[in-house]
């Protein structure tokens, strides 16, 4: 493999990893506070996508529409918390998980029945698909944008979690929600904040995802949900740093398999990626996070 190809694939993996990392962070931030997975998480991206689809079809610029997409994502995340999580506070985890599945199914069904079960294309500005020629290196513009946006989002999140009062409360709640409440932190507000953060992260990741795929469909949320779930399991459940590491690891495995496998096997990349994840978890059941291990012990 030439150096050029290697660099190109590296950028490819980094850009895919950036999306996975953002997705995983959004799922993990709610998990870390509530100890519950939001299985309607993928639909946050679906709704952001359809919101963008209508705006772009109506003539709005893709990136302006993206801002509204993120806002729609935050609203959807809050709606999920209001409908599926809040009424069931204190209920057994199973009940809440099923409620989030139900919300996911309802949103999918609504979109298929009201709009269309078929995928719809979103025209992405053509310059996005261009490449920057740097000497003998060809750098895809979308990949660079994706990496840049993800890095900014993650730095901002890290900063907010470490240097703001609500951020500190979220970190404390992620460690031990019961104690946080016993020390006087208003639980409701913390949960709300976690869902807002989750919506922002899913929204940003969703916009980047859509810029990559160029289409929306009722079931489009499934893959992002699955990938973020795998990423947070890989990174050690409930660990935000682990979610980022897990997201990048997943992307690197996926891209490496695509590049290295013989062409005949490439259609099985997704399956083989899962095999790789299973192998990793077999040897490191707590995922990559050393601290997550400590917590289990």
């Amino acid at each position, binding site marked *: 493999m030439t150096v050029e190809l290697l660099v190109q694939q590296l950028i490819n993996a980094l850009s895919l990893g950036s999306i996975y990392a953002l997705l995983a962070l959004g799922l993990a931030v709610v998990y870390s506070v509530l100890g519950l997975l939001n299985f309607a998480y993928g639909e946050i991206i679906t709704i952001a996508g359809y919101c963008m689809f209508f705006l772009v079809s109506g003539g709005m610029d893709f990136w302006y529409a993206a801002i509204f997409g993120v806002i729609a994502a935050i609203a959807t995340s809050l709606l999920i918390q209001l409908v599926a999580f809040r009424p069931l506070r204190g209920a057994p985890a199973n009940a809440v998980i099923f409620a989030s599945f139900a919300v996911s199914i309802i949103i999918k069904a609504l979109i298929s029945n009201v709009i269309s079960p078929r995928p719809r294309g979103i025209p992405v500005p053509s310059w996005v698909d261009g490449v920057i020629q740097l000497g003998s290196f060809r750098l895809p513009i979308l990949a660079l944008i994706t990496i840049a946006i993800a890095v900014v989002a993650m730095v901002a999140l890290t900063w907010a979690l470490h240097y703001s*009062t609500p951020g*500190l*409360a979220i*970190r*404390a709640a992620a*460690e*031990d929600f*019961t*104690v*946080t*409440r*016993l*020390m*006087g*932190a*208003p*639980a409701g507000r913390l949960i709300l904040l976690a869902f807002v953060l989750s919506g922002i992260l899913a929204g940003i990741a969703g916009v980047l995802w859509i810029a990559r795929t160029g289409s929306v469909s009722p079931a489009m949320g499934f893959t992002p949900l699955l990938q973020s779930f795998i990423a947070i399991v890989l990174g050690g459940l409930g660990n935000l740093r682990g979610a980022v590491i897990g997201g990048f690891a997943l992307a690197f495995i996926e891209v490496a398999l695509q590049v290295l496998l013989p062409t005949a096997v490439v259609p099985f990349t997704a399956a083989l990626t899962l095999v790789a994840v299973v192998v990793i978890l077999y040897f490191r059941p707590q995922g990559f996070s050393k*601290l997550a291990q*400590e*917590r289990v012990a």
Partner: protein
Amino acid sequence: MSTPERQLAVSGVTMRFAGLVALDDVSLSLKRGEVLGVIGPNGSGKSTLVNVISGVLAPTSGTVVIDGHDVTAVAPPIISRHGVARSFQTVRLFRRLSVRDNVAGVVRKAKRPVDQIVDEWLERLGILHLADRLAGDLAYGLQRRVEIARALATGPGYLLLDEPAAGLNDTESADLERVIRSIAEDRELDCGVLIIDHDMRLITSLCDRLQVLFNGKTIAEGIPSDVRNDPAVVEAYLGTRPSPAKG
């Protein structure tokens, strides 16, 4: 019965868990600036009592009143805002947060900068030099201090300490005793302390009053020297003595 202001009053609290009576009609009162010890053998209901007061458990019957406000079965954050703070039998810190963040995370809206308040509590508990260490990395005795600093930083009127000396060596236990006494005697803080412990030496030297629980019931209360010699207490701790009544 009207409740005098400025005290924590538990009246007739009963706590049943599926057939097991953990607390049976227990009452107690704790005034500001007072140190009350609750002792009793394992399984006598001491920790359940702390859980009821702090809102972790809703009692089957009975009331908890703080400074005249009925807070029975109210959510923990609200009870905390009424001035109840606690520590845990097994230390429960935010292990992956720094010592400073553990304490800073609980400080409410204050007139002074949060850092300044945190520094003062850490200084007071002798752990200021550890402010930037991860709480989970500290020795157990030091973690206890962080936990007490965290509880105090919520600005409590009543501090509940669930076996604060458990797992500490003699030196650490003596240091802890000094800290607890200074808290109780601090007029400016105006804080009552409820201590649950097995360590009779610590309890008798610290507490103004003792209350003894056995099988969920109060079997004795009073000043430490009296309680120690109470026949019912001796029996609860040492097992049944031959007596005419029991044969």
